[in-house]
């Protein structure tokens, strides 16, 4: 029983970390809360559904298509909505309001096209599962964990071993200084949207592969992702991952000790409690980091 909970926590935190890392990446370069991240997740999940369940393509092709669609949507939102707003002088609050508008509009567009019922990518009997030490492990959940680790390694390499990474970290640590040093911050912003949205897309398509999605799924994923990012300090990607593990563990324990309905209240309780008791002096959360 307890090993199963451990595995479930691992799956949930992998999913949550993908959303939280993408969200943090975008927050650090765009400097406002991009709530439309949830819309990107939902669209990616439905793109995966169309490619795999409707057209009948291989699941790996569906995953790549979904991530590409997510990256394009993220870049489009940044280029066509946030950038004009920014050049018109919009502040973080204005951009936040616009991102809420994008979220509501896209989510409802998805629900108009596909309906409100839940969609599954694979029929349940086609998912193979095996047991190790009494833990039921389905192939799609294992794939989710492997792909998350892979994505995390790639993002880490990208940030710390390439020129793009230097640009992104520079913008994250000090926007004005980056401009002074001749960094193209607009390009950096688009890059962070592409990268962050692709991660959200991976989370979305893997969630539709492991369980099911409905148009509101992106939003629930964002809630836990944002909570994880905030509890993890809201600044570093490692913090976001640590926060994801913490939040997912709290969720799994809550649904084990009480019942599944208490998962969400526990997450938001953690969030609000953290925001209220957060030590004022420490700007960061449970993880200290200078840039990302």
């Amino acid at each position, binding site marked *: 029983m307890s090993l199963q909970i451990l595995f479930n926590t691992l799956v949930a935190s992998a999913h949550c970390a993908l959303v939280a890392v993408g969200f943090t990446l975008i927050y650090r370069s765009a400097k406002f809360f991009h709530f439309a991240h949830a819309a990107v997740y939902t669209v990616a999940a439905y793109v995966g559904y169309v490619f795999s369940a409707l057209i009948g393509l291989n699941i790996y092709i569906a995953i790549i298509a979904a991530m590409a669609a997510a990256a394009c949507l993220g870049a489009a939102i940044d280029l066509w909505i946030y950038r004009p707003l920014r050049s018109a002088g919009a*502040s*973080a609050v204005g951009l*936040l*309001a616009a991102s809420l508008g994008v979220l*509501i*509009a896209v989510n409802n*567009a998805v629900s108009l096209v596909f309906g409100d019922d839940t969609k599954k990518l694979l029929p349940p009997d086609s998912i193979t599962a095996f047991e190790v030490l009494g833990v039921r492990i389905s192939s799609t959940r294992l794939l989710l964990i492997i792909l998350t680790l892979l994505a995390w390694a790639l993002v880490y390499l990208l940030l710390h071993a390439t020129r793009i990474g230097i640009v992104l970290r520079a913008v994250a640590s000090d926007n004005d200084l980056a401009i002074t040093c001749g960094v193209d911050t607009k390009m950096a912003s688009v890059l962070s949207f592409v990268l962050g949205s692709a991660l959200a897309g991976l989370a979305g398509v893997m969630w539709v592969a492991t369980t099911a999605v409905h148009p509101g799924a992106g939003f629930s994923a964002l809630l836990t992702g944002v909570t994880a990012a905030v509890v993890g300090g809201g600044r570093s990607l490692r913090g976001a991952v640590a926060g994801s593990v913490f939040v997912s563990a709290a969720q799994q324990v809550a649904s084990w000790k009480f019942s599944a309905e208490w998962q969400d209240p526990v997450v*938001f309780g953690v969030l609000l409690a953290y*925001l209220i008791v957060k030590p004022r002096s420490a700007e960061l959360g449970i993880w200290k980091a200078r840039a990302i």
Partner: protein
Amino acid sequence: MEYILRVLVLSCVYAMLAVSLDLIVGYVGILSLAQAALFGIGAYTSALLAIHWQLGFLSTQFVSIVAAVLVSGLLSLAAFRLKEDYLVIGSFGLQLIVYSGFRNFVWLTNGPDGVGGIPRPRLLFWTIESDGAFFALAVVCLAVSWQLKNMISSSPFGRVLRAIREDETFATSLGKNTMVFKCLAFAFSAGLAGSAGGLYAHYARFIDPSSFTLDESVLLISMVVIGGPASVWGPVAGAFALVAMQEGLRFIGLPASTSAQVRQLLYGALLIVIVATRPKGLVGTYRFGR
């Protein structure tokens, strides 16, 4: 006629909520995503008191307002430590906790099935039965909220709120304890939202958690931003315009299954367009989010 009165009463309730939210969005310059939750607290408090203890309208209003103010205190606690950005996240958390509370405390709120059989409001010795009389009551409530909000915003207190919106550090340097001002603004706003909730519960006579969702909070933000934040008539105009738009969609023959989605899609799109092209809103003067 009955239909028109229904739309008008709903417009009044939404206008009260938009007016209450404007104190935060327009004057403190922070987006709060918890307004629907405070509305729900007011509605559930009034409904339960009226059903179980047969309290009259004035006493349920009083308790609803107090309850909403107390719940908003949680947000004020967070405000002591957070900058604007994170305060939005705090209000977001509060909204979701309260919403899950409505769904999960089944012994109190009857969970997702909702609370029914809420009596019509009783004002001293007079029970308001007809829709026309209820509309009059709604107009009076809206007028009181509107007047209170205008008194608050044009008072020295409101001036400090505007100063905080423009430059919090500067307001602090003038010796203003900005935290106290922010918390009071939250409390006033929550009280007005709680009062609107009480009115709504007595009117609808059946409430369930679906009326107090995060989507509803975003809708209220759209009303304020579209109408014109920090203005006398803006929030009222925004609320009436969006309710009218919603009812107008009924008449162009959209099937019922898609009308909710189309409506929300339009709110979202309109919110982006207004922030991008007309930050003053329909009738406002303050440029929101600039």
